[in-house]
């Protein structure tokens, strides 16, 4: 491995540490929020936003998605599209069916 490569990796390590700190802080933040007893809908949204940010950090930096080749982004995009369907439609059908347990 060449010198410049090593230098490159050194710089990355700084980023990794920053990301790690951010993840730790965000973990504490979510837990903290949960003690505030916000209204349910708001609490769920907030928790999911924070979780998504954390997941984005892990995927982006630890898994190098930020600088990853296009094929992989395409694969994930396809996956995301189907995931979206998977999430929306059972719920939508729920709504179409009315409440599940009206008995």
């Amino acid at each position, binding site marked *: *491995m060449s010198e410049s*490569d*090593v230098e490159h*990796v*050194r710089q*990355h*390590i700084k980023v*990794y*540490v920053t*990301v*790690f700190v951010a*993840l*730790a802080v965000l*973990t*504490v933040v*979510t*837990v903290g*929020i*949960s003690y505030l007893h916000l209204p*349910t809908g708001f*609490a*769920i949204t907030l*928790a*999911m936003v*924070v*979780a998504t940010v*954390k*997941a984005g950090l*892990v*995927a982006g930096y*630890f*898994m190098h998605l930020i600088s*990853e*080749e*296009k*094929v*992989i982004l395409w*694969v*994930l995009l*396809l*996956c995301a599209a*189907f*995931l979206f369907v*998977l*999430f929306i439609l*059972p*719920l939508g059908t*729920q709504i179409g069916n009315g*409440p*599940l*347990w009206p008995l």
Partner: protein
Amino acid sequence: MSVVIPYQVEPHPVTGVTSGKLGIWLFLASEVMLFGALFSSYVLLRVGAAVENWPTGVEAGLNVPIGTANTLVLITSSITMVMAWASLKMDNLAAFRRYFGTTIALGLVFLVVKAFEYSDKFGHHIFPATGWPEAGDPSVFYGLYFTLTGLHALHVILGILVNLWLLFFGVALWKTDKERLTGRIEIAGLYWHFVDLVWIFLFPTLYLL
């Protein structure tokens, strides 16, 4: 093997990645669909249940401080994992061993903590089949809790096994083919980070909401 299959070490000129990396990402895509289906089911079941029948993690007796600590353990294991890979990149096998060993150890810590949480629940006669609350209309909260964390723990176990193999046997490759070993560690790392990522969603969903 006598047959030489290209792009195992050097990236493919068009896609820019090795076969192994493309493979693991495809695998992770299928894992995303697996956990996506589990989460989607969670949402469907929760929306279907009456609000008062669905406990928050705290109400259900889950220990948030322990969960938080465990989250931090996994996150730490993730950074040691990248550090292990970075050490190989920097040609430092000893550092790799240290970081990689730490990752495995942290994984084990996570499992042990999880085991304590489980046994605590069992001790309180809470099982997957337990409904909530005892009186009134039941919900599947505990079923989801045990199934989702159990499946996640299975993934952790699998990761630990693979990593152990790499640490004790896989490293032999360092003598003959450094690039290839680095590639393998990267792949193992991608899997490990994914498991971490799943937990990042599981933790608030089950413990906090």
